[in-house]
């Protein structure tokens, strides 16, 4: 099946079985920033934005993406300039081993689009579908608050 999508701002076709996991199709297309964590929709490492909404790409069939706009971690930075969320993660220690980081950054991206000035409770709720084993989340909360400050 050929599916027309917009991937990180570029219109293109994605090829694969209609029920192929969007995760695998994206990675095969070169977007290896999308990570497979648990593969069962629990951890959020594979999260991408579909028409601006955060989804687990391991649970999303390719066919579901037809006509939609997909943002992966590769689409967050512009050229060689990091997005404010990414630089905030760097400065605040929001990433350790890095497996959760692409999903975390995209979850933060969706949150800050909805709530440019989030409370800590809003941050906790927005990141609840993204598990992190290394940081204990505290540096990630700090990173999101710092990103919000940078973006204001």
């Amino acid at each position: 099946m050929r599916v027309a999508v917009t991937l990180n701002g570029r219109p293109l076709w994605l090829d694969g079985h209609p029920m192929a996991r969007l995760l695998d199709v994206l990675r095969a297309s070169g977007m290896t920033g999308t990570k497979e964590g648990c593969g069962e929709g629990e951890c959020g490492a594979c999260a991408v934005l579909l028409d601006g909404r955060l989804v687990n790409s391991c649970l999303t069939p390719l066919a579901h993406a037809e006509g939609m706009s997909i943002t992966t971690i590769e689409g967050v930075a512009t050229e060689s300039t990091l997005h404010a969320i990414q630089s905030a993660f760097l400065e605040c220690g929001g990433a350790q081993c890095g497996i959760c980081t692409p999903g975390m950054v995209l979850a933060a991206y969706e949150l800050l689009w909805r709530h440019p000035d989030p409370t800590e409770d809003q941050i906790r709720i927005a990141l609840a579908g993204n598990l992190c084993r290394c940081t204990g989340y505290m540096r990630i909360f700090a990173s999101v608050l710092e990103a919000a400050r940078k973006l204001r």
Partner: protein
Amino acid sequence: MLAASTEIGQGTNTIFSQIAADALGIDPDDVEIAQPDTSVVPDSGPTVASRTCMVVGKLVESAAAGIRHTLVDAGFLTAVFTRAEFQIACRRYVETFGSLRSTSQYTPPPGLVWDDDKYLGDAYGTYGWAVYVAEVSVDTATWETRVDDFVALQEVGKVINPTLATGQIEGGVAQGIGWALYEDVVWREGRMVNSQMTNYIMPTSMDLPGIRVYFEETPYPYGPAGAKGIGELPMDGPAPAIFNAVANATGVNVTRLPLTPERLMDLMDA
């Protein structure tokens, strides 16, 4: 900088750059770290046991100081220098002598005896110390325990990088809280039967209290700039602190982790 210690997110590359740069008197950005490919780097032992900063970091510090002393002794560098003067000194040394290398080999601190064949003795010259304080609430309808506040006071010898050190403590405490309350490894016929994120429950962003970290610094003479290891210590204290708080709240003595609601209900009924 060549060492076998592996960057796994804990910040080894950053602190090794800082340690080497401090010993050399240069900027951390000017330190390059080789990939820990054992065909290239010396065997500095495994990246385990809270030893990377304290043991290998000290070797990095000594080796970097060796480079500086070599340049000074050769007359290419003065006690105080600029970045450009350092670069010129290195270039002159390499042009004159062919290469500029400094290697440092671990020797136990005085008085420390370790038998690697029998695995007896003291492997470590020192340990970090900590005080952990947990505030919990117990739901007497569901027997769920929740940590409402957590304070970690951590004695680490010397904080090399405050952001990374804080992250190590927070992450360890979070794992410790998960261990204390949620993370139940269920074995059956030699296999873990709940080896999925669906049924092995670890803390999410909604499950943890604020983790407040404070440092105490008592420099250890055989660690880089006085630093000790910190990786594992924050795993050890949270469960005892939480269980003492539960005992304080409920009067029951908890001796087995994780303290799931089912286990606490059994303890309350006993």
